[in-house]
């Protein structure tokens, strides 16, 4: 029972903190919309704004994840996480609470972009829409868990931002968000093992359930792959936290 109480309390704290700092509402969503507006208009290919739309949602989600995990560094050195670390609770519960909180917020911030879905000709179908939410949530979980792991390992805020940007931006770019396929074999290989590919695919299939999308992974496959990545990074984060303070 303490496991769930711990997860719940840490998850809830994330939501309240978000709600108390209104500027965070704009950061992630605003940046992604700017990208969408500028790139979508500037790149004059037909229907590019519609093509780029799922990537925009994922981008908004991604910025939100970076915000959520960057706070871990300070919180751990001079903040609430200090007490959490000496509380009689399992490390796995701490990690789950924090990641679930970050992933919930990121999903929500990705969904805010949907306000503009009507302008790109998206169709609403309940099943597809639920698939979209599930994909978005799972990719949020993956990115937050990755961020958690990096934040815990790096423990310096500027270093964390540098590394996160270096890793996440290429992952996002090579996910099918900006271009569908590449003739370069190594890029193709990278796209196949990139969790973002499956996140963007799930969102795209959710938005355009009736479109013919040959080169995009299917929804079911995407969900399974994302789930795998989520479990992997969750375990990885739990292990680093478990090892904190241990001496070899």
């Amino acid at each position, binding site marked *: 029972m303490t496991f769930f109480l711990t997860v719940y309390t840490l998850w809830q704290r994330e939501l309240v*903190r978000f709600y108390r700092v209104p500027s965070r509402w704009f950061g992630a969503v605003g940046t992604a919309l700017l990208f969408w507006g500028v790139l979508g208009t500037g790149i004059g290919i037909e229907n590019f704004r519609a093509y780029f739309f799922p990537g925009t949602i994922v981008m908004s989600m991604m910025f939100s994840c970076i915000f959520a995990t960057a706070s871990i560094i300070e919180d751990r050195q001079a*903040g*609430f996480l200090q*007490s959490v670390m000496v509380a009689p609770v399992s490390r796995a519960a701490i990690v789950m609470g924090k990641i679930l909180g970050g992933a919930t917020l990121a999903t929500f911030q990705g969904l805010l972009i949907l306000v503009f879905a009507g302008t790109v000709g998206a169709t609403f179908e309940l099943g597809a829409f639920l698939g979209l939410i599930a994909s978005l949530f799972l990719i949020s979980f993956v990115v937050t868990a990755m961020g958690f792991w990096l934040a815990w390992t790096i423990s310096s805020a500027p270093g964390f931002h540098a590394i996160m940007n270096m890793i996440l931006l290429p992952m996002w770019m090579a996910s099918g968000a900006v271009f569908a396929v590449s003739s370069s074999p190594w890029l193709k290989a990278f796209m196949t093992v990139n969790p973002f590919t499956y996140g963007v695919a799930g969102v795209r299939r959710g938005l355009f359930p009736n479109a013919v999308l040959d080169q995009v992974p299917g929804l079911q496959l995407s969900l399974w792959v994302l789930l795998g990545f989520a479990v992997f990074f969750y375990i990885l984060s739990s292990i680093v936290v478990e090892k904190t303070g*241990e001496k070899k």
Partner: protein
Amino acid sequence: MSHLLEVQNLSYQYGTRKALQDLTFSVEKGEIFGFLGPNGGGKTTTFKILSTLFSAQPGQVKIFGMDLAQDKIAIRRRMGIVFQLPALDKKLKVRENLVHQGHLYGLSGKELQTRIDRDLERVGLKDREKEKVEKLSGGLQRRVELAKALLNNPELMILDEPSTGLDPAARKEFWSHLENLRQSQGMTVLVTTHYLEEADRCDRLLILDKGVKVALGKPEALKAEIGGEVLRLKSKEPTVLAAKLMEKLKIKTQIVGDLIQIEQPKAYHLVAPILEAFPDDVLSLTLGLPTLEDVFIHQTGRRFSEDKE
């Protein structure tokens, strides 16, 4: 009867730097036990090990008769911990912080609410519970930390430099809260400090320097070891004057920084002879009862404050 806390041959290294060396001591139930030392002395490392953040190796730590290396979770349940840096969520209200803390200790529902009321009452913050922590002064925030650490009815409270950054009035108040709790709950308190006034309020004191135990005992006993009074002379050339004092008056001295220090019973008898013999060498002279600072100097040959940041 076994001790509440038992530490045996505890050492800790950061890379090659030895932060703690072969520390052995024990603490009894109901004591206020202090760790005094300059920064870098090993206080914070000791705190981190005792608060279960670092694993102790080599060495053994027993708390409540349990081995810290094996029964971490069981020990954590019975401890309250106050960190040197704030461990509150400043965007949350006072009461919200306590609710989260309670959940982490498996408390919920009515029981939790009752305990929160009780502890806010104890630290005198019941009327501020709906305010965000960031709106409170430093002294009040410290009291929230204390209330938070009390929620699980700890038998042992560990505090790391809890009054750093507080003004003297707030510091005094914080300590009177601690003393009340010890008296009313029989709680054992471990506290690290580099303030001499705080160290004086402890029942027993462990003085740490460079990771080594330099003294352990009641503050009065430690001071009594020095005996008599302490006479300090300021001089332009302390080494020269020290040599002269030895030669002419047969007075044993110790040079500490730019001061000459004389520790002996009835040191006040020396004031007139010294001033008569060396009127030009002595710039100033102070005479006082030994303080904990003198204890530190006596043990290490250095001034306590020199090592401060």
